[in-house]
């Protein structure tokens, strides 16, 4: 039994592109800003963010249509990345992201 009408499902799927684009763009900019000294765990972190930003819009092709909860989660992730902008001021990785 489907919880949402087809039109709402499509709308949520399209609306999810917005936070996914934000996540993808911010992650790409920060990956570009990374130096050799940036810890591998931080590179993995932003690679996973890009993976999420790619997987959510492509999910419907595997039958995984985003729900309102999915939309809330990716939107929250986009907000988190936006809020951490001061730490990456001037496109420079923060000290905490560097190798120990």
């Amino acid at each position, binding site marked *: 039994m489907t919880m949402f009408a*087809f*039109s*709402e499902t*499509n*709308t*949520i*799927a*399209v*609306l999810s592109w917005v936070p996914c684009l934000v996540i993808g*763009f911010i*992650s*790409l*900019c920060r*990956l*570009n*800003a*990374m*130096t050799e000294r*940036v810890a591998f765990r931080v*590179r993995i972190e*932003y*690679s*996973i963010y*890009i*993976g999420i930003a*790619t*997987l959510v819009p*492509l999910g*419907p*092709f*595997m039958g995984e249509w985003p729900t309102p909860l999915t939309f809330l989660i990716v939107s929250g992730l986009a907000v988190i990345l936006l809020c951490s902008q001061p730490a990456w001021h001037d*496109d420079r990785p923060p000290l905490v992201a560097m190798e120990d």
Partner: protein
Amino acid sequence: MDGPPNLIDVVGLGVIVAGFFYSPATAAVIGPYIVIIMASVVGASFAVARRERTTRAGAVLYFVRSSGIAILLTGMIASVLAAHYQGVNERILIAPVALLLGSVGDDWGKVLRRLQSFVFSLLDLMRKDEK
């Protein structure tokens, strides 16, 4: 038209846009490539992190180029490897091959030089065995 957009208009727009993107014709093309796209994109992100910092537009182009090359070559390379190694299924290979190809980025010269020196080392080893 006065006033803020109606919720129905937004829903209608979502239906139209989704109808173009999520159409069966698009699914037929993209569907089989989803795993390749995912792995290529993750691999390309490592390539972006590895390179020298450039402009944002440069980073986006580099990312699209790296993942694009990986998406184009993965199927072919996975097929060749699966044909060579009988016990390995092509479907198992596409994700790691896409990940590796995406992570190469623009360093094809380095990769090919290392491959060349590896092949020459193997040939030297075989010649020593023959003697």
